[in-house]
């Protein structure tokens, strides 16, 4: 008799909703004439919100489906909400930007939404083949998005660099998966962990090699040093809303799968993995921050700062217990709102073509547009980790989780790094408030959609920073069943 596997299609309802939305947007692009950019953006927003509702309906259901290939535990659901929040804010950032750059093509929203589907699969994958497919579904649209401004050479260059690096990394990743399959005979996380712990003799070198190759693959995606060389070029060349999406979505998705791998599949060999992650964390934080100090271009500066933030998140991966994972989730939520806010201001202050993105171009901004300067300062304070902002609470949570597990040196290095980072974040503030105005001609209008994104982000930064209690509860609940 043929055994019918347990499918349980209800656990992918959020993905299905996003997929249907994406297809509707494409159909609108094909079959309607005239102005459809706004209609498509509204469809995208509705789809994201409905999908978020579907995700929140699954809260505490702990369902799994497709023969245990996908799981919808609270950990995965929390990550899905973070991706959807990131996508929502990115759509708000994009509406006006692409109108200004005169590239209003509806495929843009289709690509953003397809990439979100990949991230959602990645966060709920409980098996290596699914994780690989999720990663590719996430990455392929991102390569196209990086080159979306196809007449601009910088954007072309960003797309090609990102594509070569990404495809190269996928090669390492699948090779790693192959070795783990060869060493354990399975690709399911629970079974891998069972096979590893059932063996009495030391660590299988094939297994360790497989893990290192997988780590290299994901390190490219989440931009850990020394696999970060593509980040500044891609972030600078890609259209700014896409850059904002790059720095929140793929990074969070990479951490989702790394957490699940390290907590579930490789828990029995945790002892030999931690030193590798420790070194990666220190390198990523330090190199990211030190190079960011020398940057003159705001997008490049934010690119290096996003590498440094990945380093802080790696600390929580080294800690590896419930406290570390909840700190990482909290930090990712905070990081999403503050990064989107900072990129929102960059979009607001840029002119068509974005020829000048130097930090000095913001000289004297506070005299002309005090509100924009104050909000930008808020995001910079948050990224630097100064109270009472979300960034401060997030960093505090991560460092205290490191100390509670005994990683004192890691916490010290993290704190030193975050002190270094204050210098380059505050330079933006100093330039805006204390330098004389040099660019009298910089025209700024205040489009509604962009304002919505920036104001939502600013409220988020302050709300998470001043009333973190509810967020702590939420991230703590999202770890039920994982430990």
């Amino acid at each position, binding site marked *: 008799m043929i055994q019918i596997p347990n499918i349980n299609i209800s656990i992918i309802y959020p993905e299905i909703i996003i997929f249907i939305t994406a297809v509707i947007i494409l159909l609108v692009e094909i079959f309607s004439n005239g102005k459809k950019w706004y209609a498509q953006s509204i469809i995208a927003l509705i789809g994201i919100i409905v999908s978020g509702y579907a995700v929140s309906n699954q809260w505490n259901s702990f369902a799994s489906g497709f023969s245990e290939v996908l799981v919808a535990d609270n950990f995965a659901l929390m990550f899905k909400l973070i991706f959807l929040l990131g996508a929502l804010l990115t759509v708000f950032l994009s509406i006006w930007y692409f109108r200004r750059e005169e590239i209003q093509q509806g495929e843009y929203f289709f690509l953003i939404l397809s990439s979100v589907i990949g991230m959602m699969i990645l966060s709920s994958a409980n098996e290596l*083949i699914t994780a*690989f*497919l999720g990663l*590719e579904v996430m990455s*392929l649209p991102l*390569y*196209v998005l990086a*080159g979306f401004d*196809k*007449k601009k*050479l*910088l954007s*072309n*260059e960003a*797309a*090609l*660099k990102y*594509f*070569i690096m990404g*495809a*190269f990394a*996928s*090669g390492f990743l*699948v*090779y790693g*998966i*192959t*070795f783990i*399959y*060869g060493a354990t*005979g*399975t*690709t399911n996380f629970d079974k891998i962990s069972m096979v590893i712990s059932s063996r009495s003799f030391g660590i299988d070198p094939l297994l360790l090699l497989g893990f290192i190759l997988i780590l290299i693959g994901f390190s490219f995606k989440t931009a850990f040093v020394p696999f970060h060389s593509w980040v*500044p*070029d891609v972030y*600078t*060349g890609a259209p700014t809303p896409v850059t904002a999406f790059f720095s929140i979505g793929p990074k969070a998705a990479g951490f989702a799968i790394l957490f699940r791998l390290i907590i579930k599949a490789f828990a029995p060999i945790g002892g030999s993995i931690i030193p590798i992650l420790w070194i990666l964390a220190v390198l990523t934080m330090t190199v990211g921050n030190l*190079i960011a100090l020398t*940057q003159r271009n705001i997008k*490049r500066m934010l690119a290096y700062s996003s590498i440094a933030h990945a380093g802080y998140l790696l600390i929580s991966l080294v800690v590896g217990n419930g406290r570390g994972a909840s700190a990482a989730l909290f930090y990712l939520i905070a990081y999403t709102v503050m990064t989107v806010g900072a990129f929102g201001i960059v979009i607001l202050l840029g002119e068509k073509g974005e020829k000048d993105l130097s930090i000095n171009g913001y000289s004297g901004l506070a005299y002309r547009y005090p509100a924009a300067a104050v909000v930008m300062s808020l995001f910079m304070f948050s990224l630097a980790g100064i109270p009472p902002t979300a960034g401060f609470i997030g960093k505090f949570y991560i460092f205290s989780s490191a100390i509670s597990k005994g990683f004192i040196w890691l916490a010290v290095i993290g704190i030193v790094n975050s002190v270094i980072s204050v210098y380059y974040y505050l330079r933006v503030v100093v330039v805006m408030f204390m330098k004389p105005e040099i660019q009298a001609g910089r025209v700024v209008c205040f489009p509604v959609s962009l304002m919505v994104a920036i104001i939502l982000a600013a409220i988020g930064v302050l709300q998470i920073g001043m009333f973190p209690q509810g967020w702590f509860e939420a991230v703590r609940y999202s770890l039920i069943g994982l430990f």
Partner: protein
Amino acid sequence: MSLGLAHFLVLSGVIFAIGVIGVIIRRNAIIILMSIELMLNAVNIALVAFSVYMRNMDGQVFVFFIITVAAAEAAVGLALAVVISRNRKSVDVDDFNLMKW
């Protein structure tokens, strides 16, 4: 001498290394794309070898997924190469030096 698992793994390792070296030292974007395909196919050899050796079908199923993904990657990569060669009349990666840190 009969062929064992080790022979296939060595073959796969050698092909993978050729792919990696190709990505690193070649300067033409199309050849880099071919080297990436070589890496993925090396993985396929190892997967099939493991799968046969362990009498477990998962590996061979994964090979089909990898072939599909490789096709999708090639489609995106070639499309990007077409756009770039239209704008710059060249697909040499050494020409892409607009940005330096």
